């Protein structure tokens, strides 16, 4: 089992142990989930990004896991998905074809991304015995009827989870799960605060391991490790001369680690991000009192105020304004946009970001990421140049 590592007695060793555990789960999420199912006898339910809360599935006694892209090249999946779909969709289809999801007790779909909708149908076709609980969340979150519609969606999901398990899910159970998830999110936000303040040295990859493992692991186990981690992180502040950068984008799935590692290798340090496998995932909490359906609905409809999402229609909020404010707040010297190739919402909104940053004179670098191999040497040159520009801009 992935968590059966030895425990170090000294603080630095323990810090490494915890990070190594998060890294191991992040690297092999399905292995962790299979082990968990075998050891606990509980159900495992797959969730699709980016807006479906795991709390209801947790309250139903299952382990909710956010399904991840894996590192395998897309092979057998080529026969079911076009190569002009994003790497996440292609990888998910490929994993489904390889039988990786056969152990799941159910899959929850809830997004309106047109590519994900296609993936949903392919999975339904290839995993006919896996229940798919499809409840599409309204994407027009400032519509007059958005609250009523969202409440209806969560009520329907609640009923379907009860049907799946054959047991009633009480309000108290959901509130209890919400509390567990909130605690986990709060701890990760605390780590983000520490990183933003320059008090700790966590690489982009390490932060990804923390968040990605949170999407997979039993939340209480993860939280216990986070509590230890927070207490031990203070010891290692980052180097003073590194260029401070903000990472943005990469919706739905985790960026490749070698791309993140380039930041530090080229003399930068990540001080903040709005990545989905990053701050976006833990930015908003759910109220722990009152009706859970109402609380989850408010969470869904209001989390855009924490970090605007280009997949949601919201007249008032603009991603570029948010990013400019966050770059200011975090003291970042530049912005790196990680855009998944073929990610339509990001392609639509990127020019807004680009122009806003050009107007403000803040350096930014756009990197288009692909599921398959990337030209890392060329990317390294671009990264070095960008960091040099950012450094000089500050000095000027």
């Amino acid at each position, binding site marked *: 089992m992935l968590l059966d590592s030895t425990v170090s007695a000294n603080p630095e060793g323990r810090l490494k142990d915890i990070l190594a555990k998060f890294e191991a789960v992040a690297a092999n999420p399905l292995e962790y989930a299979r082990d968990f199912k075998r050891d606990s006898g509980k159900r495992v339910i797959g969730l699709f990004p980016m807006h479906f809360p795991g709390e209801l599935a947790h309250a139903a006694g299952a382990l909710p896991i956010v399904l991840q892209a894996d590192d395998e090249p897309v092979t057998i999946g080529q*026969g*079911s*998905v*076009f190569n*002009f*779909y994003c790497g996440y969709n292609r990888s998910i289809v490929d994993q489904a074809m390889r039988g990786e999801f056969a152990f799941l007790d159910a899959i929850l779909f809830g997004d*309106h*991304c*047109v*590519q994900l*909708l*296609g993936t*949903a*149908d*392919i999975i*339904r*076709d290839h995993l006919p015995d896996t229940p*798919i*609980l*499809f409840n*599409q969340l*309204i*994407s*027009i979150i400032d*519509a*007059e*009827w958005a609250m009523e*519609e969202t409440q209806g969606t969560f009520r329907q999901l609640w009923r379907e989870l009860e049907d799946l398990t054959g047991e009633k899910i009480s309000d108290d159970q959901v509130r209890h799960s919400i509390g567990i998830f909130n605690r986990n999110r709060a701890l990760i936000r605390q780590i983000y605060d520490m990183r933003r303040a320059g008090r700790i040295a966590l690489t982009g990859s390490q932060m990804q391991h923390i968040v990605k493992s949170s999407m997979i692991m039993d939340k209480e186990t993860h939280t216990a490790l986070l509590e230890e981690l927070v207490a031990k992180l203070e010891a290692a502040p980052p180097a003073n001369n590194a260029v401070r950068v903000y990472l943005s984008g990469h919706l739905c799935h985790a960026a490749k680690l070698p791309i993140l590692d380039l930041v530090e290798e080229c003399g930068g340090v990540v001080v903040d991000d709005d990545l989905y496998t990053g701050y976006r995932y833990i930015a908003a909490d759910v109220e722990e009192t009152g009706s859970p359906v109402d609380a989850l609905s408010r969470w869904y409809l209001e989390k855009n105020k924490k970090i605007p999402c*280009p*997949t949601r*229609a919201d*007249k008032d909020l*603009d991603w570029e304004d948010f990013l400019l404010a966050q770059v200011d707040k975090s003291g970042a010297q530049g912005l790196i946009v990680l855009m998944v*190739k*073929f990610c*339509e*919402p990001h*392609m*639509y*909104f*990127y*020019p*807004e970001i*680009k*122009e806003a940053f050009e107007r403000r004179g803040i350096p930014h670098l756009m990197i288009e990421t692909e599921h398959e191999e990337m030209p890392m040497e060329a990317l390294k040159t671009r990264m070095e140049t960008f960091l040099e520009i950012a450094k000089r801009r500050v000095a000027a």
Partner: protein
Amino acid sequence: MQMTSEMTPPGGAKVASPVFGNGMRANRLSTTKRGGKLVNDYWADLFRAKEEGKKIVWYNGTYIPPFFHAHDVAWVHGEAWAAYLAAKHGEMPAQQKGEARGYDRELCSYARTHIGQALIDLEKLKNGTLGIDDDDPRAETMRKLPAPDMIINAYPYCSSGQQWDDITYRLFGKKIPIFTISIPLLWGGRPDAGYMQGEEWQQRSQYVAKQLVAMTKFLEEHTGRKYDFDRLSEVMSYVKKAATLRMEAMDLCAATPAPASFFDWIVSIAHVNFLPGTQAIVDYFEDVKAEIQQRIADGVGAVPNEKYRLFFDGMMNWNKVGWLADKFAAVDATVVAGRYTHMSFWQEPQLVDLKNPVLGMAQNYLICPNNHGAPIMIGEIERVCDKFNIDGMVMHASRTCRGMTNSQFLIADSAKKKGRQAMFFEGDVADESFYKDELLNTRLEAMIETLEAKKRAA
């Protein structure tokens, strides 16, 4: 969705025909040429709308113009405008303008054309110039497109379509009021689900209808006039008649040889998609139906020597309508039906109750062919294929229209299980650079040979 594009007339020399096959060309319905005049009249009326004091709605998505027509506001369909520019060879400057701002060419090419053109228009407004030479053939057209007073988005299924108008709204400085309608996917996962049946169907019908009524409030708010639902019923009476005639005429094409082809229906979509609901569209489809009946009586087909009957799946390649019509004719294949033409655009007109049309309109919007989960959608495709005695499927993998490419592998698999051939070809809705002619030639030849072998074996 679409607008018309010029088809090559039989024997005409207007557009170079592909050098392919036996050289035969499509036998286009003569009525559709007259249909082109209705489309041109629509654009001419639109270009005058501001002078006539009308408010202008820019909209994208499903066929909601009857709501605008009934309220005497003019409407611009973004997809149709993009296709109109393409038909006038004006799409490239718009797409280049968009790309220069950073819009990736993997984005919906309708959107890139529309957004790019809006960028050109905005620059024109800022500079007081068009930014192109006055003798450029595009100049007059571009000068005339009225700017929006309102933006309405009503896209079934496609998230990209919704995001497109989110950007249009921002391009105009967030000063133009926008209204977005949610038309959710009919997933069809509940036990009672079926085509136009089940709890989900009932719930979603009411949900969309409610939003359409809210849209009329939005129109009232931004025009200062009360919405007239009686007028909507009147407009819909024409649309319903036209749609019924269209479906009847399509059904007549079950005859052998098929008297009209998918490409005839393609150039007749504007009439049920965004043209005004008047007697003119009723007359048009009466004429189309009459010509089809006459062709059946005379034994005349849409392809001179029909040997094979095909189904076209996917979005149309608007740069290549005439080209493709001739290409299939050149191998004696009639593309008899398609998902885009036969499973959309008021294809269930009987749902519209003229006394209270909103619910039936909502239901027709919901059954956009993309907007079903694959099992129900494929069931409907198979029903159409059976009706028209289809031998093979032509799958257009339109590069930037994922709404139509989703499920195409499942559709092809299903066709093969039913004993139908299936082939793919690459292209796009409004970006010609994705079209690879030689690939289509090779694959089409291979499919035709297989069909021929099957016929011989039988």
